[in-house]
């Protein structure tokens, strides 16, 4: 494989990883705080994408200025992700916190089933695609291959911004520190006077927004059809499991690892492309069951 193909594979891997990272970020955040694996997260991705497409169509049909398209994606994600996250938290997650972990998983699985059908009832079965944003930003050439500026610049930029923003929020703001405290030990945090109910609602809303953001950013370049939520769910899960549940920095590296593995596979061994994320997940989990970056926790007897 020569140098230029290497660079190409690198570029493709990075932009794919950016999307994966955003979705996985939401998932791992929710798990960290609530200790529940939100199987409905894939649906948040799908809803984010569909809603962003609807907003995009509204912008063109109301002949609003086209530069609104990019901010519209962000707005769409914030609105629908926050809304769905809040609804899920209030109606379901809040009430299952002390139940059997199996039941918790199943409730989010049931929520996934409901959201999938609702999505189909609302947006139908035809593929949905609104690409104005990408066309506006134009293209640039790398190693003789044309990439869209959106894919090469916007996606990684948003992913990095989300990462840095989240780190800053968790590390430097009071509310963020409360979230971190609840992640470490919910009971002690409550004993210390942290309003854990509010923290959990906030986390769920934030996690939902991140998942929906992944979908919203994917919508200008991808056709959204029924079933896209289920596929993204298991992929983001692979990222989160590889990184270690609750690990934010690790999720970035795991997303890069999986994104690059996939894109290199397309160039070198195309038949293995689909396998790569799960193969990596199996290998990592066999060696380090808690994920690559998890911290060692003392065992409580």
């Amino acid at each position: 494989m020569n140098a230029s193909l290497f660079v190409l594979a690198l570029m493709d891997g990075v932009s794919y990883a950016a999307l994966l990272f955003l979705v996985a970020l939401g998932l791992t955040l929710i798990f960290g705080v609530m200790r529940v694996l939100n199987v409905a997260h894939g649906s948040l991705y799908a809803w984010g994408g569909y809603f962003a497409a609807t907003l995009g169509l509204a912008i063109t049909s109301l002949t609003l200025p086209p530069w609104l398209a990019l901010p519209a994606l962000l707005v769409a994600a914030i609105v629908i992700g926050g809304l769905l996250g809040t609804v899920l938290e209030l109606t379901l997650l809040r009430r299952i916190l002390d139940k059997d972990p199996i039941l918790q998983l199943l409730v989010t699985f049931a929520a996934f089933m409901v959201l999938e059908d609702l999505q189909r009832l609302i947006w139908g079965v035809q593929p949905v695609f609104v690409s104005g944003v990408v066309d506006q930003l134009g293209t640039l050439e790398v190693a003789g291959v044309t990439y869209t500026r959106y894919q090469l610049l916007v996606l990684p930029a948003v992913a990095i911004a989300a990462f840095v923003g989240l780190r800053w929020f968790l590390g430097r703001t009071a509310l963020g520190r409360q979230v971190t405290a609840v992640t470490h030990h919910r009971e002690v945090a409550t004993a210390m006077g942290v309003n854990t109910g509010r923290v959990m609602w906030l986390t769920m809303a934030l996690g939902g927004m991140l998942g929906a953001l992944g979908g919203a950013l994917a919508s200008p370049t991808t056709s959204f059809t029924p079933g896209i939520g289920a596929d993204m769910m298991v992929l983001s899960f692979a990222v989160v499991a590889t990184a270690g549940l609750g690990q934010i920095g690790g999720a970035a590296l795991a997303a890069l690892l999986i994104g690059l593995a996939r894109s290199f596979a397309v160039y070198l061994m195309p038949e293995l492309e689909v396998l790569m994320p799960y193969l990596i997940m199996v290998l990592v989990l066999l060696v380090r069951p808690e994920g690559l970056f998890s911290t060692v926790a003392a065992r409580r007897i």
Partner: protein
Amino acid sequence: MASNRIVLVAGALLAAVVAVTAAAPWLKTPVLLALANGLAVCGVIVLIRAGQVSFGHAMFASLAGYGVAFMGRAWQLDALLLIALGTLGAALAGALIGLFMVRYRGIFFGMLNLAFSMVLFSVLGKFGHVTGGTDGLRFDRPTFAGQTLERAGFETALLALALVLALAAGWVVMRYFASANGQALAAIKTNETRLEYLGISAKRVFWGGYVLSATLCGLGGSVFALTQGLVTPEMGYWVRSGEIVFIAILGGSGHALGAFIGAFVFEFVKLYAAALLTGAWQMVLGLVLIVMVFVAPTGIFGLLSRRLAGAGASR
């Protein structure tokens, strides 16, 4: 619930199944599918007893099903032999994978199972020259106990066999739960460390339970394959594994009878919801599950046993 009551309920269900399928022959297929599902669910309730849930157990059903398809196409074996070999294959796979799997608990156990099942799913879909790809493998109807049967006769024979297998599986699972190994398995959920203090290897007990669960899933997968005459990678998709766990909770994860009750309810709701409310059956089932988790976490079987126990106690 007293054991003779259980026998009564099981007997009543059995009679109902026989009567209904005799009256409406087209019902044989959904009943067979429900029984196949029920067998897989029995496998999952073994794991639930240990407090663990696997989001990948459909892979054992898938392995067995593909084994049946391969052998049916290559060697035209008898149906009974196919079921036996398919199940054996799943058991062996379970034994092998179990060797790694038993070191994990909780969410990591669930995740690793999921990972394995998705690798299998991707492989089955990709290597189409061998596995038939995403369209799957078809195989012709085999002989049954040496007899070449027409479709109607074959299905009746398969149904009878499936009923026998279901009863046997249910009995085996309940005996296992009552046995020393089964009790030790339950201890993994409550307090694994104390189990080790007793000198019992939790890993070995768990391994035994894992192999049993894989075998039951394999049995279900073989029956499924023979009913359809077709196996597809979808048999092993993660949503399928989730449905199996769903049914376990819906029916009641404490007793094998719950597994079958849940499987029948699931199958028929899906069939009629799909016919009447095309496009909303998943939502209906999802809402049902949420209600069940809050109202009746011990499942339909739990509700039933409370009812019947209450009736008995008030005498």
